[in-house]
């Protein structure tokens, strides 16, 4: 962990400094990672152990009874299924809206393009709390409360600006000549988009899908405002109610937290580098 491979050629790293740096990194990582470790550890304890104080910092064997209890006593499977449904609808709607918009932003010259870009930025930084009350009023008048597809539509509205930005950066990276060549070869604009541009920007499309999916999967404020019926609860709502029910055993609550986090953590880790490139390419040049 601490042994230094040769660092930057310009700067010699002395052994003592390497050791200190290594130590600092280990320490900081431990502090940062402790809550995660604690969440997982607490979910793998039996009920008798979870109430002792001071709590043991190391596991005594693994007890998965919390997970067994979670899946047998609480409707977590249903919550996760509904979260998956809403998040999938969000991804679908996002892709439908964002592919043509990113194409227009990246490839075409038109009046109002920079104004549109600004508008996107603007909606992106709008605090959700600012619109939550009027949105609820609007949804009530349309009869869209307690509707999962309408919730997905709202999630889409809030994630689309960022996704348009990330996808535009991906489109920008594809050489224009490729698309032009396809147009000369007799493709029309749609087929050029389908056959040339989209296959070349697959990583960007994956990143946009992941961003949209988990923005919806993680979202709590709109979901808690618009969904009131228990049978329509998504996982973030279900977990928040578990928190307020005093009879939920602690280790079951932790197990619920871990179960809900596994998917986003796995996906974010997998695409982390790519995502950062996409995000920083759009924002930070140089």
């Amino acid at each position: 962990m601490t042994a230094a491979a040769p660092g930057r050629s310009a700067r010699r790293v002395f052994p003592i400094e390497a050791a200190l740096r290594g130590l600092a990194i280990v320490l900081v990582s431990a502090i940062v990672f402790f809550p995660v470790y604690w969440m997982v550890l607490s979910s793998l304890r039996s009920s008798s152990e979870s109430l002792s104080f001071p709590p043991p910092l190391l596991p005594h064997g693994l007890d998965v009874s919390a997970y067994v209890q979670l899946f047998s006593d609480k409707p977590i499977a249903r919550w996760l299924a509904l979260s998956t449904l809403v998040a999938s609808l969000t991804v679908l709607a996002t892709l439908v809206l964002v592919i043509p918009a990113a194409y227009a932003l990246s490839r075409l010259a038109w009046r109002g393009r920079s104004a549109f870009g600004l508008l996107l930025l603007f909606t992106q930084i709008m605090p959700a709390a600012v619109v939550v009350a009027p949105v609820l009023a609007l949804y009530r008048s349309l009869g869209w409360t307690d509707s999962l597809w309408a919730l997905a539509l709202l999630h889409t509205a809030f994630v689309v600006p960022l996704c348009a930005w990330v996808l535009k950066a991906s489109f920008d990276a594809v050489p224009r000549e490729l698309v032009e060549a396809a147009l000369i070869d007799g493709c029309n604009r749609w087929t050029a988009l389908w056959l040339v541009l989209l296959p070349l920007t697959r990583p960007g499309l994956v990143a946009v899908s992941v961003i949209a999916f988990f923005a919806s999967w993680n979202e709590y404020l709109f979901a808690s405002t618009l969904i009131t019926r228990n049978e329509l609860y998504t996982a973030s709502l279900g977990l928040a109610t578990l928190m307020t029910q005093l009879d939920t055993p602690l280790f079951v609550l932790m197990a619920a937290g871990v179960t809900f986090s596994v998917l986003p953590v796995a996906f974010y880790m997998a695409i982390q580098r790519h995502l950062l490139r996409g995000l920083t390419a759009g924002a930070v040049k140089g």
Partner: protein
Amino acid sequence: MIGSRAFPYLLILPMLALEGALVLYPIARGALSSLETPAGFGLDTYRRMLADPDFWAMIGRTVLFTLAVDAIILAVGLGLALLMNWSFRGRGLVRSLLTVPWAIPEVPVAITFVLMLDPSFGVFNAFVRLLPGVEESPQWLLDPTLAMLVVIAATVWKGFPFYSLVLLSALQAVPDELYEAATMDGAGRVGQFRYITLPGIRGSLALLAVLGFIYSTQQFTLIWLITGGGPVDATTTLAPAIYMQAFRFYDFGYAGAIAVVGFLISAIATTAFVLVQRGMAES
């Protein structure tokens, strides 16, 4: 066949329609409801708001929370990025570990913090009691100052990995030759940092400062689930305040007025962001 002049507008139309219906229209409607008075339209709600000491206390808390979160996130994010900006075995692992808090949804983060701070069996108290002179476990969520510290800590913990990773990419983009030249010119570590590293990442830092400002001003879920805005409003910042006015007191006009303030804050942040962008494009 579609005329090529109208084509780009057709491409953005669906997205524009959705943004208009679900973001812009509700903002306008909220602003309008803040102007409604029994006798038509007027600034009564705003007069009431500006005369309300609770409103100013909330603005003060929001400023404190935002500045604290933003400053700490940038400082910790930069410190960690500098630590990681060299080749060592296991760097990929550390990077991956760092991604985790960023990826965990806010609801589980809130659950973890609440349980770690529980007065009777929270692990955090086990650490605190190791400190000399601490006999009792502090009541983290019942003390206004401690509760504020807790929501700041939770918000920083969830947010800073992203800042670290962006700054690390920025640091790695600074050309090695510059460091070599600086060393030739006799610059030490401090000189290198001041004359090479800082100018090289200034753009990213400015951008992240604005993003951090927006991130902390918008924060709702963590605060709401950890403290509920309490104890006695001690952690009620802008977003929880709007939520309470609307859904606890059903005072939609007042909620709209506070929302307009939030909207103005965001607009100022957007303008700052754009100026930063322009400045970077020029340099």
